[in-house]
């Protein structure tokens, strides 16, 4: 049912954009908790897109890690810090200009990449049909073992750094 999946794709993509927009610029509420909740919705919608791509593993991990763990911690922090409604900040023209420039640059790079990309670039996705975890594992631990390990070391460094920063009295 290609039409059906298309409808689903556009629906979910629309939702991702809408929730993403509401996360950063909600015209109805300036409550940080609301922003966080819309971010959760964004993540869940994104997981829906992964499902459409048959990347079930990615979808599940996306929900599990980002929505289920990271965002809960975000909420936790927001609530504990007792953030009141954000005050309306006046936009300064300089900041506005820099911001717009950044957006234009980002969209430009994105469009350029997309235009350059060939349909065959989705070959990797094709290999991961039905979100096979075994294949994903093989890919990760054979083809890209070094970057994976480097990344994990990087995360370890970050963790150690955090512990060092928060530790009050170092001997």
């Amino acid at each position, binding site marked *: *049912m290609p039409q059906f999946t298309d409808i689903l794709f556009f629906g979910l993509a629309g939702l991702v954009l809408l929730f993403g927009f509401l996360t950063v610029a909600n015209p109805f509420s300036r409550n940080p*908790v609301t922003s966080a*909740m819309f971010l*959760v919705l964004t993540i*869940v919608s994104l*997981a829906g897109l992964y499902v459409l791509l048959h990347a*079930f*593993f990615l*979808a*599940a*991990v*996306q*929900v*599990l890690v980002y*929505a*289920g*763990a990271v965002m*809960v*911690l975000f*909420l*936790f922090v927001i*609530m*504990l810090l007792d953030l009141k409604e954000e005050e309306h900040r006046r936009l300064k023209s300089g900041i506005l200009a820099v911001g717009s420039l950044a957006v234009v640059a980002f969209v430009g790079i994105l469009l350029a990449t997309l235009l350059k990309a060939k349909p065959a670039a989705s070959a990797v996705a094709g290999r991961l049909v*039905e*979100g*096979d*975890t075994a294949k994903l594992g093989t890919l990760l631990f054979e083809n890209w073992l070094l970057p994976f390990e480097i990344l994990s070391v990087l995360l370890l460094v970050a963790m150690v750094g955090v512990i060092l920063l928060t530790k009050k009295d170092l001997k």
Partner: protein
Amino acid sequence: MEFLQYLSPSTQFVLFSALKIFAVFGVVMTAVAYAVLVERKVSAWIQNRVGPNRTAPFFINYLPVIGPFLVRLGIFQPMADGLKFLLKEDFTPNYVRKVYFWIAPAITVIPALMTVAVIPFGSTLGTEKMVIADLNVGILYTFGIVSLGVYGIVLAGYGSNSKYPFLGSIRSSAQMISYEIPMGMSVIPIFLVAGSLNLGDIIRYQAEHGWMILKQPVAFVIFLIAAFAETNRLPFDLPESESELVGGYHTEYSSMKLALFFLGEYANMIASSAMMVTLFCGGWTLPFVTALSTPSSSILIGLLHIGVFFAKMALFMILFIWVRWMLPRFRYDQLMDIGWRRFIPAALINIVVTALVVAFLHD
């Protein structure tokens, strides 16, 4: 049943899925209602009390012996409870954050019910697999959805805009995140042993090689205790803890909204029980009985499989309930201590050891 032949496969898929969803939904809801009854009855019996034994619908007078017996058992109490929840005044305090206050109960219930979707609660009935969604990453799906359940409680505490619910929700978010980690780690050895993330495959493996509980007792204990913590049941019910937080996150709730929280809690218990049955206790299979450990060919055997599954699940439910009336509440630091300093290392060691064993055995 002939007309089914003429339907396209996708239409059949939608039709059967819908049927299964309705059936499972109905069964879960009923089970929740009666779990509450069992809870009340078991607690009463443990405390030398009688428990609910009064609710008697009008038609019970026409049943000579069995009627009064059912009334004594409180069989009709869930109906009265449900009716009461519906008819109670739904009170919304005027200082709450309305939107969050209203959606929080729903957010609690929906993930709890969604978890049930991947549980294979039977082998086959005819040609139809007795699982709503036969995902090959079933267990990850479950964890993903379960992890969303915490939002209901966090938002309930936040939306209530009141200190006790807030404290309850803060505790619960910390508690659930902490225990998701050992819970998730504890099941990894299972998949190492079984070689698949698909829950159906795991049952099949257990039918052939014996129950996982025997092969992975450490994983089972960790999973079981983490399940208590994830469902906010005693001895880990710190988000509610009546004695210190009044009612925890649902202090400000009343009527059907309160009922939804209970529904969520019991649905979570059911889902956890079902997961434990599937992962550790062989699902719908029974050892030593060939008919019951291979996918069924007849409708009757299929139904029997479902019965076996529910019987095992009921045992776990009773365990949940029994423990509630047996153990006192943990202190919060003890809870965190057990989660981070005992279970996570234990689960990690379990993974490493299992991986080594599996690797050497394969060689």
